[in-house]
Each structure stands twice: as structure tokens, then as C-alpha cells.
């Protein structure tokens, strides 16, 4: 191989954009035919489909999810009611579509709040190091070790029901996750040459932290988001199933499953199968997105560190 050809080969894949986020995007498009790439793009499609369903629920749901006894109760699936009706005669298909909404809202609130708290604290902890870092890591690890659902359940119990309160309860679980990843990545970026250079040029700590390090560390956030979001959906549904999440008669997957349980012995399979299937498609989609992303992003992270 000639020198020019070798150079071309090494330059080609990563040349198009210089920022780490842009490079990641390039890689994701390039690797769409690999297993990780395919998983990522399937996940993206599922994720955005659910966002669409959530936003468009009032338009695409054939019935009002809360109107009762418009149709006979406990009917198996028919063409009029694709997923049957529940014990109160509500259309399960409409409820399942509407249920996407509360799930999305809770995950959005929980993830954004966890990011707002976990990211700066993680940056700070990783940057300053020392006993402050050790203390924060100990606190976050302790919280992380406690069963998340139980912690969220107690918080939810005192905050009360509703989408926003459950979002906050979920936040408590995922702050340690965002913290941990941000902190670890900060520690490795802190030692990079460009940070050294900035310091040598006399940039103060705040500038270094926010203009140089934060931007680099941000690349690990989508991976954390996608890996914790699937879990957040499960936890939110679990809270509702336990009777600590949303208030009846709100259409919600966990709540509907908890109601369906009472009628399981009568063989009304449709009222418990479909809300669960929705949860699984959504969580599997997000998990695929996260797996694919972390598979592709991780070599990139390693390259940056080297």
C-alpha cells in the first residue's frame, strides 16, 4: 500500500466534521448495516413513532379513552375495537394510544431533571477531585444501590399522584446514573492536552469546565439517556401498577394493567396483553437505540481518550 493510499484510508471515515457529536452522527450513518447500527436505527424509528403516537393520540385514537359504557364491557378484539374493551366498556386501543402520552411525559420530566442535576454535579465532582469527589461518589453509589422502584415509591407517596410528581420521583433514581457517567468521563477529559493548553493560556476553571470539558463530556449523555429511559418507563409503569402513579381514570399502561389483573381469571386476556405489549415495544426500541449507540460511541470515546 502506498503512503498516500494509507493516509486516505485513515482520513476518510472521520474527516467530514470535526466536533465529537458530528463525528458520532457520521459513524451512525456509516454503520447502519452493522448489527449495532441496525439496532440503533430500529430504536430511533420506534422512539419517534411513539413520540408521534403520543402527540397525535387525540387525532388517531378512534374513541375517547375515558368514555365508559359506550360499548358493551369486556369484549374481545373486533374490527370496531381492535384491542377489545375493558370491564367498563372503554376502548383499549384508544387507551393504549393515549397511555403513550403520560409515559413520554414522565420519562421526559425525569430524564431532563436528572440531567440538570446529575450533569453539573458530575462535572464538578470529576473536575475538582479530592475528598469532595470521593464523598459525592459515596453518596451517589449508596443511593444507586437502593432498589430504585422503592425509593421512587416513597417519594411518590409523599408528593402525591400525577405526571409531574412521578417524573420527580423517577428523577431521584437516575441522578446517580447521570452523575456517575459524567464524572468518569470528566476525569478522563480533564487530563487531555487541549485542557492542559487552555490552562497554560490562563483560562480560569469555570471556562475550562464549561467551554472545554462539558462539551466533550456531553457526547456520553445520549447513551445514558437511552439506557436509563427504558428503565424509567418500566419504573413509571410499575409505580402505576402498585397504585402510586397516576390517578384513575387517566389512560396509563401500568394503571390499566393493575385493573386488568382483577379480570385475569375470567380469561379476558386482551385487557392485560395489549398495554404490556406497548410497554415492551417502547422499552425494547429505546434499549436497542441505547445498545447500538453505546456500541458505536464507545470506540469513539476510547479513541478520544487515547
Amino acid at each position, binding site marked *: 500500500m502506498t503512503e498516500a493510499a494509507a493516509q486516505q484510508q485513515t482520513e476518510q471515515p472521520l474527516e467530514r466534521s470535526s466536533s465529537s457529536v458530528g463525528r458520532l452522527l457520521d459513524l451512525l450513518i456509516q454503520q447502519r448495516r452493522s448489527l449495532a447500527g441496525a439496532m440503533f436505527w430500529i430504536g430511533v424509528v420506534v422512539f419517534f413513532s411513539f413520540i408521534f403516537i403520543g402527540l397525535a393520540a387525540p387525532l388517531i385514537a378512534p374513541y375517547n379513552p375515558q368514555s365508559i359504557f359506550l360499548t358493551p364491557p369486556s369484549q374481545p378484539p373486533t374490527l370496531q375495537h381492535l384491542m377489545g374493551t375493558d370491564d367498563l366498556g372503554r376502548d383499549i386501543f384508544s387507551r393504549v394510544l393515549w397511555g403513550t402520552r403520560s409515559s413520554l411525559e414522565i420519562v421526559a420530566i425525569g430524564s431532563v431533571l436528572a440531567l440538570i442535576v446529575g450533569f453539573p454535579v458530575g462535572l464538578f465532582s470529576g473536575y475538582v477531585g479530592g475528598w469532595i469527589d470521593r464523598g459525592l461518589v459515596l453518596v451517589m453509589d449508596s443511593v444507586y*444501590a*437502593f432498589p430504585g*422502584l422503592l425509593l421512587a415509591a416513597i417519594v411518590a*407517596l409523599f408528593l402525591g399522584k400525577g405526571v409531574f410528581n412521578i417524573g420527580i420521583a423517577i428523577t431521584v433514581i437516575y441522578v446517580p446514573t447521570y452523575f456517575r457517567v459524567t464524572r468518569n468521563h470528566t476525569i478522563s477529559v480533564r487530563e487531555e492536552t487541549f485542557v492542559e493548553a487552555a490552562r497554560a493560556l490562563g483560562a480560569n476553571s469555570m471556562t475550562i469546565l464549561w467551554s472545554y470539558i462539558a462539551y466533550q463530556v456531553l457526547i456520553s449523555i445520549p447513551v445514558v439517556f437511552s439506557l436509563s429511559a427504558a428503565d424509567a418507563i418500566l419504573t413509571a409503569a*410499575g409505580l402505576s401498577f402498585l397504585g402510586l402513579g397516576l390517578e384513575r381514570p387517566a389512560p396509563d399502561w401500568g394503571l390499566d394493567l393493575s385493573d386488568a389483573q382483577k379480570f*385475569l381469571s375470567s380469561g379476558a386476556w386482551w385487557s*392485560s396483553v395489549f398495554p404490556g405489549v406497548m410497554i*415492551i415495544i417502547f*422499552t425494547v426500541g429505546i434499549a436497542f437505540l441505547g445498545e447500538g449507540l453505546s456500541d458505536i460511541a464507545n470506540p469513539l470515546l476510547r479513541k478520544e481518550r487515547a
Partner: protein
Amino acid sequence: MPKQGSLLAYTVSRLILALPTLLILLTVLFLVLRILPGDPVSALEAGRHRSIRDIAADKARLGLDQPWWIQYPVYLGQVFSGNFGVSLGSLYLGQPVLGVIAQKLPATIELAIGGMIVATIMGVGTGVLGGANRDKLPDVIVRLYGGIIWVIPVFWLGLMLQLVFAVGLHWFPPNLRYAADPVIYPPPTHITGLYTLDSLLEGSLDKFAISIDHLFLPSLTLGLVVSGFFTRTVRANLLRTINSDYVEAARARGVPEPFIVLRYAFRNALIPIVTILGLQFAILFAGAVLTEKTFSWDGMGTLLLNSIDSRDYAMIQGTVVVYAFIIVIISVIIDVINGLIDPRVRY
């Protein structure tokens, strides 16, 4: 002072290191239970119409009318002396909190052990199958299984298993820990509280069969969901060890392939799993709460949910604190097991 590097010294140091974790957890729980949104008794009273004087009396009895710097040491004192007071809810009114928890704990332990057994068998089985057949069909199936099983809601999986194996096929009872009628089917005498173990200690195989019958579906539910983690870790570790020099050397000597997988690669693949096993218990206990609700399993999770329903503040606090203790103790035990398997970590 025990010799440095001995298992005893290591155990003692792990115990001492676990104390801060325990204290932090207890403090977080204190903050959530007492400080955060106003006061818990009022929050719990929201659904119940009682006179302000009764509520004030409840608060005074729990010491919640005191400022936090007085409450906190009292709370820690209660926790470490095991005195959680008496139940305030209608279900166990006046009974000591710790006594009620001690009655319910064995059910949860039994479920957790059952779940761990299923998770280990499923996880190690699929992980080895995948790792030994890299990129072939079994491996693809195993990777799909490992990627999907953990995002299935545990309570939904429980409902589905109930639907198929209890409601549909009548192979297993749909719920409860033991036959519903205590007159025809008296449960085994209380020795450990684990029905399976107690019936064996009693020497009654019939009772053992009934207990296992009831334990099977809940354990399967919980175990399957937790197994995904084992599948992925076993597979990844096996892939690593199967390509290592000593395995290659064994292969060059002509050791048959199945023997290589199980005897050479598998054993070393197991060590890292024990290390991260501790975190799985948090997931296991959270899953157990949901599984208990799905199968009307009368354990700690059910107790916590009932206490929430009956607005039993003392019992809620006792239950969560006991959970915190269990989590910390398990992490110490796992660390010690780790030190036992791999002497390098003791230093």
C-alpha cells in the same frame, strides 16, 4: 489484629467500609420520609378525615413535632436499636413493627432465592450457549433474549404466565404462597418461615410439593427478568476467556471442545459476575415488590404496599430501613465471597 490479607481482616474491613453507605442510605431515607414535602403524617392523612387533634397526637407519638436536629439522632437510635415502634395502621394496629416485618421477611427471601436460582440457571445456560457459538444462530437468539428480557415489565410477565399456566392450563396455582384453605391444607410449622424449607424439616413431601407449586411461577417471573443481565455478562466473559492463551493451549493439546468451554473458559468467566452481582439485588428486590403484588405473595413488598394503603407511617419507615440494611449486608457478603474466590482482591 488479624493478619493482613486474611479473609477475616478483609471481612472486617468490608464491614467497616459498609457503615458509611448504610448511614448515607438511612440519611437519604430520613430526608425523604421526614423532611422533604412538609411532614409525612399530614401527607398520609390526605385521604382520611380525622380531627386535627388526632393527627397532632400521631405526630407527637412519632416525635415528628420535634425539629429535625432532635429527630435525626432519635431516628438513628431507633434504627440501630431495632426499635421501630408499633404499627399505626388498621391491619397490625399496636403490634411492634419489627415483629411484623420478621413475619413477612421469609416470604420475600424465599421468592428472592427462587428468583436467583431461575436467573442463574437461565442466565448461565443461555450465556454459555451464546458464548460458545459466537455469531451463529444460537448466539443471535441468545443476544436477542439478553437484550429484550430485561425490558419486559416484571408484573406483566407475571400476568402472562398466570394467564397461560394458571388460568389456561391449570398447571400451577394463580397466586398465594400456599393452599388457600388452612383447615384442609395446614401450612408447615414455622421454623425458618421459608415454606419449602420448613416442610422438608417437618418431613412432609406433600407440603413441600404444595409450596414449590406456589413458588414456581413467581420465581420464574422474577428470575427471567433478572436473568438477562447474567446472560449478557456470562456471554461477554466467556468470549473473553475462550480466546485467552491458556484456553488456546488446552485446545492445542487436543482437549475436546465442550470440555474446554465448561472446564477452562467457564470457570474463569464466572469470577467477574460475582463482582457485579451485588447491584443485581437492588433490581431483584424492586422486581420482588412487583412480583409479590402480581401473585398476592404475602412478603415485605406486600407489607409495604399495605402500610401505604393503611397510612401506617411507622411500618413504612421500618420496612424501607430494613430493605436498606438487607442491601448493605448483601453487598458485604458478596464482597467477602469475592475475596474467597479471588484472593487478589483482599489486598
